[in-house]
């Protein structure tokens, strides 16, 4: 068995490392996908059973769900001991029940109305919940049945009506069983059981521990149990007597205990009515503190906040006063939750196992780490296992047992994703002091605001008028380099190359129409002939195909040696028409003096 598991774990190890060699902060210490464990977070625990600082893993295994329930103890990677449990286990805790040396803890397994206490891995004590008072009418009915005053069918009928009155939870197990039987079985069942005295028992729904009078790690602890009868009991660890009994308005399902029994304590309970209640020392009745939108699937406390996982895929945090602090929306259903308390580093976070196989670790509302598992995780526990302080136990839906160890060098970095003002907003700008000039200007602006505005508007209108005028004149004289006329849509650009006295003037001409070719065009220049001499003062342009760029060149020589420059105007003309189609103005650069070598 062990060799096969080892081989598979090795392969698994290597594959995991290939996937994320440096990323993961977890080491895969042990992987056993065939461990066949069926359990939940409340039913696993880590404890130093032999007081040799080699912590064991305790699992209350539900077996098949109907039989084969077992208490299993793992030492390192191997099964150390197992012992049968008679009924389905509900919760398992380890606690110190005495002050004897060596400090070996006891194990308490809650199952039905009983708590089985194990010491040194041997059954030590069985605690039974105190019986509840039997409904008087029910008692009377059974008494009559016993004395054969009434028929079994009458008994069933009467019990049925009693049940329909809304006191179903008040009936004894015997009556409920009788009501659920087939008609042919009722007679024999009633005959067998009617002679014994009628008792009403409740069952345990959740269990926790609370230190009695000292807060040490190995101090004596009381058991705190929640029952189906809507009560919370605190039990004495040595005598197993009820130290305190508190009532709740609903059936508790998750319990979280803080504080010391003899000093002051708070018990936070999530109930089946979708509310969270708090109980404190001396109170007989619970105080409703949180009303949840959906049913709770997990409850943890870190410091002053209560973190509840809900069925609507949310993780919600409340203050102890019941004020909602934040909500995290999760992508999948929550299966279980557990607290991660890394004492060596003072790091506390909540681990949440999701139905998509992820285990997410939230430090407050920030996601600090995600573990991806091949199967959904149903039970989680972080703590000391073997000699390793930071081990994480994961048990999957398929029954696999996985142990991961946190790397010594691991760091948790939570990103703050809260929207708010950017940090730059809070930086103070270095605003200079107000000068006298600034103050004077401000005063002037204040005094003659309307006059200034009017002047500005006047100048603006003038500017607009002038620009409109020059635009119109440019259009009339075709002075712009792009022709807008429908007959000759042309684009002209010209450039000068060289440093002088000889320049090269390049004229680029393009027909920008989509289909109409242009013909019978010529290019001519206007210039001061005392300054410049052109090699080709007039260029005949052949047919221009639409879209293509045509380049025409002419040499310009500066014949003046005075170091002055002028403009040359380029006209594109249609033959037989004196008004140019388009015009471009070229500012000629100042010519360099002619150097004769």
């Amino acid at each position: 068995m062990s060799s096969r598991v080892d081989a598979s774990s090795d392969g698994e190890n290597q594959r995991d490392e290939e996937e994320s060699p440096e990323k993961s902060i977890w080491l895969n210490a042990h992987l056993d996908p065939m461990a066949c464990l069926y359990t939940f977070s409340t039913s696993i625990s880590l404890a130093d059973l032999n007081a040799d600082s080699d912590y064991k893993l305790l699992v209350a295994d539900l077996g098949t769900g109907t039989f084969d329930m077992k208490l299993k103890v793992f030492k390192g990677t191997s099964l150390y001991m197992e012992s049968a449990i008679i009924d389905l286990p509900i919760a398992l805790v380890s606690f110190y029940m005495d002050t004897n040396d060596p400090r070996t803890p006891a194990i308490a397994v809650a199952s039905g109305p009983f708590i089985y206490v194990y010491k040194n891995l041997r059954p030590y004590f069985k605690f039974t919940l105190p019986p509840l008072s039997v409904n008087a009418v029910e008692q009377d009915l059974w008494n009559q049945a016993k004395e054969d005053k009434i028929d079994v069918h009458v008994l069933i009928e009467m019990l049925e009506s009693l049940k329909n009155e809304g006191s179903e939870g008040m009936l004894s197990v015997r009556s409920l069983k009788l009501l659920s039987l087939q008609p042919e079985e009722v007679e024999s069942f009633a005959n067998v059981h009617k002679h014994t005295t009628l008792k009403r028992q409740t069952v345990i729904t959740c269990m926790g521990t609370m230190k009695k009078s000292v807060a040490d790690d190995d101090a004596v602890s009381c058991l705190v149990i929640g029952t189906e009868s809507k009560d919370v009991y605190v039990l004495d660890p040595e005598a197993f007597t009820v130290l305190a009994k508190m009532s709740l308005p609903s059936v508790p399902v998750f319990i979280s205990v803080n504080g010391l029994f003899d000093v002051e304590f708070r018990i936070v309970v999530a109930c089946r009515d979708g509310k969270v209640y708090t109980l404190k020392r001396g109170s007989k009745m619970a105080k409703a503190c949180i009303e949840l939108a959906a049913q709770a699937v997990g409850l943890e406390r870190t410091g002053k906040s209560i973190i509840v996982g809900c069925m609507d895929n949310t993780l919600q945090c409340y203050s102890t006063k019941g004020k909602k602090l934040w909500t995290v929306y999760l992508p999948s259903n929550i299966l279980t939750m557990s607290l991660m308390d890394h004492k060596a580093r003072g790091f506390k976070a909540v681990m949440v196992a999701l139905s998509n196989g992820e285990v997410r670790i939230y430090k407050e509302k920030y996601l600090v780490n995600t573990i991806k598992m091949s199967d959904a995780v149903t039970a989680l526990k972080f703590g000391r296992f073997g000699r390793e302080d930071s081990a994480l136990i994961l048990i999957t839906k398929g029954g696999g047992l996985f142990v991961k160890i946190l790397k010594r060098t691991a760091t948790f970095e939570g990103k703050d994703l809260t929207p708010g003002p950017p940090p730059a907003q809070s930086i103070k700008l270095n605003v200079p002091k107000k000068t006298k000039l600034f103050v004077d200007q401000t005063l002037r602006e204040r005094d003659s605001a309307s006059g200034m505005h009017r002047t500005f508007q006047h100048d603006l209108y003038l500017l607009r008028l002038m620009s409109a005028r020059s635009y119109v004149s440019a259009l009339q004289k075709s002075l712009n380099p792009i022709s807008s006329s429908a007959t000759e849509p042309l684009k002209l650009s010209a450039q000068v190359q060289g440093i002088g006295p000889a320049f090269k003037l390049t004229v680029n001409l393009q027909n920008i129409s989509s289909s109409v070719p242009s013909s019978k065009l010529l290019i001519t220049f206007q210039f001061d002939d005392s300054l410049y001499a052109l090699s080709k003062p007039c260029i005949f342009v052949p047919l221009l195909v639409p879209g293509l760029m045509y380049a025409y060149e002419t040499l310009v020589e500066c014949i003046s040696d005075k170091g002055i420059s002028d403009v040359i105007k380029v006209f594109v003309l249609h033959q037989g028409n004196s008004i140019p189609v388009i015009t471009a103005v070229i500012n000629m650069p100042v010519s360099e003096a002619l150097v004769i070598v």
Partner: protein
Amino acid sequence: MGIFDKLANFLRLKKKEINILCIGLDNSGKTTIINRLKPEKAQAQDIVPTVGFTVEKFMSQSLNFTVFDMSGQGRYRNLWEHYYKTAQAVIFVLDSSDRLRIVVAKEERGLPVLFFANKMDCKDSLSAVECTKKMGLDTIRDKPWHICASNALTGEGLPEGVAWLTGQLNS
């Protein structure tokens, strides 16, 4: 080095000084191994968890060993790397019965030379070959290394390891 030192060295009168670093996880048996290697008279009876580190000296054949016995507890492990530089050899002690923490030992593995797969007397301990595989030692190619199963309580396997180390350091 004076002429007398040279002469002494030549005649093998003066022994070579060797600094050794002894590391491994807590409770793997480092101090017990070092204790075993000391002369009979100097051996301590009770071994307690080391705090920080201790320095031990002992002789073997031609070498004078100075061993830095480091504490293996998590909070002292970052000390190890500071002593690598001064050490000429490293002894890495493995608890071969602690299957769970083999991965942690692998993670902490620096560049050791001699491995002791300690506690081979424990009933569910791994063999030296299994340890080699789990620690991924077969991937070390650039350094000489050696693993031997040991039992520090009886001293079994220790001379073999030290003999190998001595041979390596002399060559």
